[in-house]
């Protein structure tokens, strides 16, 4: 995380907006907690003491910096130059832990003793349960009932780490509903509890705070690319987007480098027009969900549509307000990748590079056939997580 941020058109405004998106659309019951966070997050995270603690944990506990790996066989296949940012090598197996380490340190400094979180694929739940174990804090994770079934290994990991996993039984029983339940829990427990949101969603300051914690990804990419190629700027940065935390981290320090094309891979599900999709920018329009104004899949009446993706982590009907702004401003290009395309890419990376990616991450890899990049162009793909949790799904398609 960078202590001093230069102000860009893509930075959050004083009132918590990215262009027309963002804000804090929350019931009064959440206001004191969110306001406490808003007033303190910048001061606390900028302090030398916090920075030192955060950097120590990222290095010695998470295992940062993660490698930037030149994927030669994948590059040959697509006749271009592809680097993989190996977030899958983070402790717990995905980028999510960058954020939970930051937020747990922040929670301690706000004198919160209990943690609540939502999870989709379970990666954020595991990353939260992990840091709660590390700090000796009580941890409650809400997870959609459907996701509990399709991500069983992560449920077991959370339990082993001492967390209580509570099923979200309402609505589509996936990430959206787990988020609703976590918010209700926070309403019912307004003191002593901190809510660790896992993505760049939620009321301000969450999108900005999570993006800052994840920005270590692009900070490292720049340094590593400079060392490897003599320039810190690639031609493309590709990442998958559910809520969009790994993409926010991978894009963050490139937002003002307009020569760098930023590419977001959304979950197309069975296809954008199939009725079973989570491709928010293709199917959504401006609306409010989970405390911020963003792009949202919804009916004409403003009811949130239940999304579909093979990947639990992308199975969300919205995107973070920063991404909505990048989409609106034309700064990032969005692709809708189908379930089948993602499966093909997961198999391909496994066989070509010996790396089994998470299903979420596989969506980012699926952009490659569309890209038509030149041999001398440099592509960085954020390899946000590893695929161990998805073996059951993969085994059905071997």
């Amino acid at each position, binding site marked *: 995380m960078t202590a001093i941020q230069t102000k860009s058109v893509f930075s959050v405004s004083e*009132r918590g907006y990215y262009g027309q998106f963002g*804000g*804090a*659309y*929350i*019931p*009064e*019951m959440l*206001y*004191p*907690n969110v306001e406490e966070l808003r007033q303190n997050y910048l001061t606390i995270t900028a302090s030398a003491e916090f920075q030192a603690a955060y950097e120590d944990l990222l290095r010695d506990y998470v295992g940062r910096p993660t490698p930037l790996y030149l994927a030669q066989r994948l590059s040959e296949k697509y006749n271009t130059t592809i680097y993989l940012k190996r977030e899958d090598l983070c402790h717990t197996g995905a980028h999510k832990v960058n954020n939970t380490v930051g937020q747990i340190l922040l929670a301690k400094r706000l004198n919160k003793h209990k943690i609540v979180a939502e999870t989709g694929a379970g990666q954020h739940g595991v990353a939260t349960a992990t840091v709660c174990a590390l700090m000796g804090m009580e941890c409650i994770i809400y997870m959609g009932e459907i996701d509990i079934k399709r991500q069983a290994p992560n449920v077991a990991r959370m339990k082993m780490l001492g967390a209580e996993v509570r099923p979200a039984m*309402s*609505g589509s029983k996936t990430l*959206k509903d787990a988020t*609703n339940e976590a*918010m*209700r829990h926070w*309403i*019912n*427990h*307004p*003191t002593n509890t901190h809510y660790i949101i896992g993505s760049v969603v939620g009321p301000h300051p969450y999108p900005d705070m999570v993006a800052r914690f994840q920005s270590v990804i692009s900070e490292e990419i720049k340094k590593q690319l400079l060392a490897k190629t003599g320039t810190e700027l690639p031609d493309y940065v590709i990442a998958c987007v559910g809520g969009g935390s790994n993409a926010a981290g991978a894009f963050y320090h490139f937002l003002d480098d307009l020569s760098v094309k930023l590419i977001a891979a959304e979950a197309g599900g069975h296809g954008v027009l199939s009725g079973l999709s989570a491709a928010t920018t293709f199917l959504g329009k*401006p*609306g*409010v*969900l*989970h*405390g911020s104004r963003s792009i*949202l899949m*919804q009916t*004409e*009446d*403003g*009811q*949130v549509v239940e999304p579909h993706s093979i990947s639990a982590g992308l199975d969300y009907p919205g995107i973070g307000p920063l991404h909505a702004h990048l989409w609106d401003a034309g700064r990032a290009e969005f692709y809708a990748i189908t379930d089948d395309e993602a499966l093909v890419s997961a198999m391909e990376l496994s066989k070509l590079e010996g790396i089994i990616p998470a299903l979420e991450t596989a969506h980012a890899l699926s952009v490659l056939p569309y890209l038509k990049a030149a041999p001398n162009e440099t592509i960085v793909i954020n390899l946000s997580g590893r695929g161990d949790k998805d073996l059951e799904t993969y085994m059905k398609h071997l």
Partner: protein
Amino acid sequence: MNRIVELFQKQPERNLNVYFTAGFPNLADTRLILRVLQEAGADLVEIGMPYSDPVADGETIQDSNQQALAAGMSVKLLFEQLRGMRPAIKLPVLLMGYINPVMQFGIENFCKSCQEVGIDGLILPDMPFDVYVEDYKAIFDRYGLLNIFLITPQTSEARIRQIDERSDGFIYMVSSASVTGSQTGVTHDMEAYFARVNAMPLRNPRLIGFGIKDRATFNQACQHASGAIIGSAFIRVLAESQDLEKDITSFVQNIK
């Protein structure tokens, strides 16, 4: 004069505000429930606009929202159902709901429709206060709609004063830190909070909501405010009722 303001001028005490979800238990029950509530002696009514993701609501109201949506309730249909309710319905009527369906209907269009059918006020718990003041208040005012804000035991005195200054009608005093439908009743901690708010003093009357479910809790609330709001307990009655007219009447008459 706005019916809400008029009510509190004429009757500053023991006002019973009843919440129900539009389209529940049956899609076409809205007008019947309104009429019976009035005849039974309710003083104000809040009609909930169902939403897919009601984060401030507990299970009872969540379930009623889902059932109403599944039956086909929408903002548009609700306005159609309410058209012509005046003058037979004399009570102040408020619409309560989440901001997204209102935004999709269009703020101005929504307010215009409210005025046309005779709505007096709105409760939109996830509408930020600053957005209201800067963007919406002028529109609400133009159509004679009062916006009712919530305060909780955690709301600071400064914020309560801001809300009191910028709103009219009444202030919705949430009794405890919880989603709707809590079973706590009125506790000693709550009494201290009510006393603290009463001592401020404020321009607007207060109604206490969350955890009010029967005559005893209504009477307790009335000792500390101008009345109380009952939601989940009433929804439970509607959910189990075989005879709405009879059950609504006895529920209200048992409380007042």
